[in-house]
């Protein structure tokens, strides 16, 4: 008890004059804790919102859906199920705006009934959602209104039918607004729909929504109808399934954000460790005196542990408070990706968890340098330095290392959807931190070895500060390097992805694609494209087909065969195949021989297969496949395997048939052309759509814009999270610099006493921070280039692209920031009264 009292008293007294410094040290923890608290309490709120609004996630009690109109048996089943029902058909189609000739591929949803039963479609004006079906109007996505400069009251043409735009879609249940970015939505009543749009093209979705009277057991019903639905390959969805899906998806989302925030926490921890290290160094003499006067090592350690704990607690409290505030921003940040409205309430569990995590991490990192207190010999009071080689490193050190590593991996694994991803993330954290620390160490060794002894004095002095005792090189490299790494990587990846799309539509390559062209329309379309002065780059037939047998075994047999787990997505899917006489320039043969023409009457049809699908199907050259080509059986023999470059805007196929087989099968054509500018593209599209409403068009520049929009939303979220790390990095920078300031004050005063001018002292400092900033920035940039390159190679499988400007800006900005912070913190050093400093030293 008396011990405790003494510890507290000593802790308070000893902190005199350094409280501000101590607070600065632990402030590097604040943002990490804030991120943790904000994200995890947002996660709790999100879970609650999903549970509360579970009904609106589906908008109905049950939905049944199919890629084709419901088969007879299912229709009968639907009748027998009863309840209130709504029918909806969704399909991709060009929509046309007569007022200005604009046209764009959209997702059209034609509805009959009162769906959604739970939640509501929100529109501007609000009443439009309830009236458009009766009035025969349309609701359209805000982005369409903006793109074509339309307003409510204008018209939109879907197929041959013209609708008045009754309102704009603000929010709908079940869908996030990010979904609408890819393909804007247009809601119209089912009644009066131009069904021509459906009879062709196969990319439609047919859905039936049910609302049941109170108390009906949906699970039991599902069990009843499931066999029929399965047999007919018709899908269904219930609220609890939706809820599970969303819960899983959103949990992954917020866990991902948590991991990004975790980096800030770790960086803060490293900052604390380094600051406490310096702080304890300054306290070692005091510790030795206390030990000499008879203080036992426990209580002495207790004094500094108490200081660290109190400061850690303050940081955790401030961080939690900040986190509580920040979480109110997150719903807006993620609004585009959320299916439900999340109202934020303060959740105390995450706050408590963040608080204790913050305190725990602070202490864990502070403990490492604090251990020096335990090893301090009282002999230091008699001698300036004590031979410490005989001091056995405390085994506590290893315990702390183990706990630290376990905590990082534990957290990562807990937050990752699968354990190995967590392991990889934890490993990546250690690799990046380790590499930065390694480079820093390398710099200190290198700069000592290759010291530029011919440089002028201030430059030499500043340069040598990189490796002299008490240098801050490692910690500054870590904080600055990590921040640089995070932000530059994000920019580089964005640029790589954009460049990839740009290259895809580069000079001479197609950038405008027309599809769903019926054979009879092909010639007319070709003429009109040529008339507008556009090149006909490709005309490709498309035939839908399914595999029925692989080497004589039916799909059913393959599926049933439990001894070999062979059945994959490649077996059951519908293929769009083409036929032609030769390979295109995006294809290379990897095995067999490409056969371009089929002699009628000969046995099996020779086909060429893409290598990945060959892997999935487990087939090679010489194997046979049997097809159902829209009702007609076709037997084929694989004669070649191709590698396909999927990056090009081109029609690429898993299967290529020879000429002479499929010419009479029902087919559609795709036509590729190139428009030199947006105007030309728009004119071309609008003239085609007005003549052939069933033909759809995609403009690559639009894809580019959409991608850019989506990526910038995502990267905005990422940047927001990275910001925590970056600001933490700056705080660590500030605290590290001010620490070295305390160390350098004595030295500067000495220099001043020896006759150094103010300018020389400033120059020395400038040079030191210039080198630190420059080296940290270069290291961070180098790491991010490697990271971006690896991602391009393995994740995006796209060519690597590097913007020198981005890198240059990053290096300059980071160096400038370092110098600014450094110089700002060193201000006034020259003016410190010489005597005061010399006496204290």
């Amino acid at each position, binding site marked *: *008890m*008396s*011990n405790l*009292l*003494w510890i507290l*008293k*000593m802790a308070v*007294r*000893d*902190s*005199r*004059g*350094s409280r501000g410094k101590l607070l600065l040290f632990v402030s590097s923890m604040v943002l990490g804790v804030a991120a943790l608290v904000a994200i995890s309490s947002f996660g709790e709120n999100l879970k609650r919102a999903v549970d509360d609004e579970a009904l609106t996630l589906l908008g109905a009690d049950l939905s049944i859906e199919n890629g084709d109109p419901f088969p007879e048996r299912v229709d009968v089943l639907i009748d027998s199920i009863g309840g209130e029902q709504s029918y909806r058909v969704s399909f991709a189609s060009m929509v046309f705006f007569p007022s200005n000739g604009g046209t764009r591929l959209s997702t059209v949803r034609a509805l009959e009934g009162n769906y959604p039963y739970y939640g509501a479609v929100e529109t501007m004006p609000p009443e439009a959602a309830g009236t458009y079906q009766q009035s025969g109007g349309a609701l359209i996505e805000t982005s369409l209104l903006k793109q074509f400069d339309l307003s409510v009251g204008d018209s939109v043409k879907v197929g041959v039918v013209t609708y008045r735009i009754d309102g704009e879609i603000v929010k709908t249940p079940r869908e996030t607004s990010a979904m609408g970015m890819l393909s804007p939505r247009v809601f119209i009543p089912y009644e009066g729909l131009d069904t021509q749009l459906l009879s062709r093209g196969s990319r439609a979705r047919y859905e039936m929504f049910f609302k049941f009277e109170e108390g009906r057991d949906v699970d039991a019903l599902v069990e009843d109808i499931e066999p029929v639905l399965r047999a007919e390959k018709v899908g269904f969805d219930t609220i609890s399934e939706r809820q599970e899906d969303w819960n899983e998806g959103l949990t992954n989302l917020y866990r991902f954000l948590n991991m990004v925030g975790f980096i800030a926490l770790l960086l803060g921890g490293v900052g604390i460790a380094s600051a406490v290290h310096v702080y304890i160094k300054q306290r070692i*003499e*005091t510790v*030795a*005196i*206390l*030990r*000499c*006067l*008879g*203080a*036992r*090592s*426990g*209580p002495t350690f207790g004094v500094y542990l108490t200081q660290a704990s109190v400061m850690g607690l303050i940081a955790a409290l401030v961080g939690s408070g900040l986190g509580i505030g920040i979480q109110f921003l997150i719903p807006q940040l993620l609004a585009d990706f959320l299916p439900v409205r999340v109202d934020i309430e303060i959740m105390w569990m995450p706050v408590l968890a963040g608080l204790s995590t913050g305190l725990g991490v602070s202490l864990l990192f502070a403990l490492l340098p604090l251990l020096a207190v335990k090893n301090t*010999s*009282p*002999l230091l*009071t*008699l*001698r300036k330095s004590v*031979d410490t080689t005989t001091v056995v490193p405390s085994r506590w050190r290893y315990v702390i290392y183990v706990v630290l590593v376990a905590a990082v991996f534990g957290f990562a694994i807990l937050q990752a959807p699968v354990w190995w991803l967590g392991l990889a993330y934890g490993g990546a954290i250690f690799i990046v931190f380790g590499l930065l620390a390694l480079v820093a160490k390398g710099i200190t060794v290198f700069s000592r070895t290759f010291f530029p002894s011919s440089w002028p004095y201030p430059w030499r002095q500043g340069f040598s500060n990189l490796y002299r005792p008490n240098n801050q090189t490692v910690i500054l490299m870590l904080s600055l390097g990590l921040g640089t790494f995070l932000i530059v990587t994000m920019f580089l990846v964005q640029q790589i992805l954009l460049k990839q799309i740009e290259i895809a539509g580069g000079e001479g390559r197609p950038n405008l694609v027309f599809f769903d062209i019926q054979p009879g329309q092909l010639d007319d379309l070709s003429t009109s494209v040529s008339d507008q002065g556009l090149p006909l780059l490709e005309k490709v037939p498309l035939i839908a087909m399914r595999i029925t047998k692989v080497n004589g075994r039916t799909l059913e047999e393959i599926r049933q065969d439990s001894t070999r787990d062979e059945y994959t997505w490649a077996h059951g899917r519908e293929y769009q195949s083409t036929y032609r006489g030769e390979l295109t320039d995006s294809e290379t043969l990897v095995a067999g021989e490409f056969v371009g023409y089929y002699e009628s009457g000969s046995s099996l049809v020779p086909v060429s297969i893409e290598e990945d699908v060959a892997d999935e199907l487990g087939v090679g050259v010489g194997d046979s496949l049997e097809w159902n080509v829209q009702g007609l059986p076709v037997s084929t023999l694989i004669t070649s395997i191709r590698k396909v470059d999927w990056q090009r805007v081109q029609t690429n196929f898993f299967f290529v048939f020879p000429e002479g087989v499929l010419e009479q099968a029902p087919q559609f054509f795709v036509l590729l052309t190139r428009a030199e500018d947006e105007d030309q593209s728009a004119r071309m599209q609008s003239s085609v759509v007005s003549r052939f409403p069933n033909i759809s068009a995609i403009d690559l520049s639009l894809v580019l814009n959409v991608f850019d929009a989506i990526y910038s939303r995502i990267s905005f979220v990422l940047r927001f999270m990275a910001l925590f790390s970056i600001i933490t990095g700056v705080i660590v920078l500030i605290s590290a610099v001010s620490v070295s300031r305390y160390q350098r004050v004595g030295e500067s005063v000495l220099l001043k006493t020896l006759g150094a001018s103010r300018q020389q002292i400033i120059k020395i400092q400038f040079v030191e921070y210039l080198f630190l900033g420059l080296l940290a920035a270069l290291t961070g940039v180098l790491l991010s280039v490697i990271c971006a390159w690896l991602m391009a190679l393995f994740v995006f499988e796209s060519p690597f692209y590097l913007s020198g400007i981005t890198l240059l800006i990053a290096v300059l900005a980071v160096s400038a920031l370092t110098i600014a912070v450094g110089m700002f913190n060193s201000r006034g050093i020259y003016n410190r009264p010489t005597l*005061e400093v010399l*006496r*204290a030293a």
Partner: protein
Amino acid sequence: MQSNSILTLQNLSKTYTSGSSELTVLKDVTLTIHEGETCAVVGPSGSGKTTLLGLCAGLDRPSEGGVQLCGVDLNGLSEDETASLRNQHVGFVFQSFQLIPTLTAIENIMVPAELRGERGVASRARSLLEAVGLLDRATHYPSQLSGGEQQRVGIARAFINKPRILFADEPTGNLDAETGETIESLLFELNQKEGTTLVLVTHDLELAQKTSRIIQLKAGKVVSDDISSRFAIPDPGVQVSR
């Protein structure tokens, strides 16, 4: 062993190993210091005086031999136990003062007493401050005091726990002659008043002369152990009350 011996060294040796070379700094030192004695340890620089002092106070461990301090064999104690022993019975005065920079003068003086969990030590500290003539500087920090003033605070701190033995390593080494003398007389004055055993390391032969016993070290060995006549050895039967 005599009942009134407070410090006994038995075949004490200290050897430093750096790499392959061994450096024996103290060789086979055996001596006994009695309660109430004042003795000076003298010798050329590097002869092992500070090393000896460190071993006596349990700040360091001997390579061979043993130390009995206040009747306790230091070899049998843990670091923390020697620390407690120091706190109970030992006072220190250092060449470089060794005040804690974040504590005021009076707080520095109170540290040893507070370490024992004692309350209300401020008045005792105050009277010690008065004894060293610094009562008006009680709330000043070390950096605001001159070297001599700092050492006076150091002496006051050494006496707060009424130690049975006081170790001083060149207490005047960092001070000018005049200030040094003030410090010396203060040290002896308090020492006599409290009846403390004093072990003083010094270069200053004049200072050494003021003690009752001079132990001379040379290259780690005791070369002479001279009981001066200027001070009588206190009656062995008299136990100094604490």
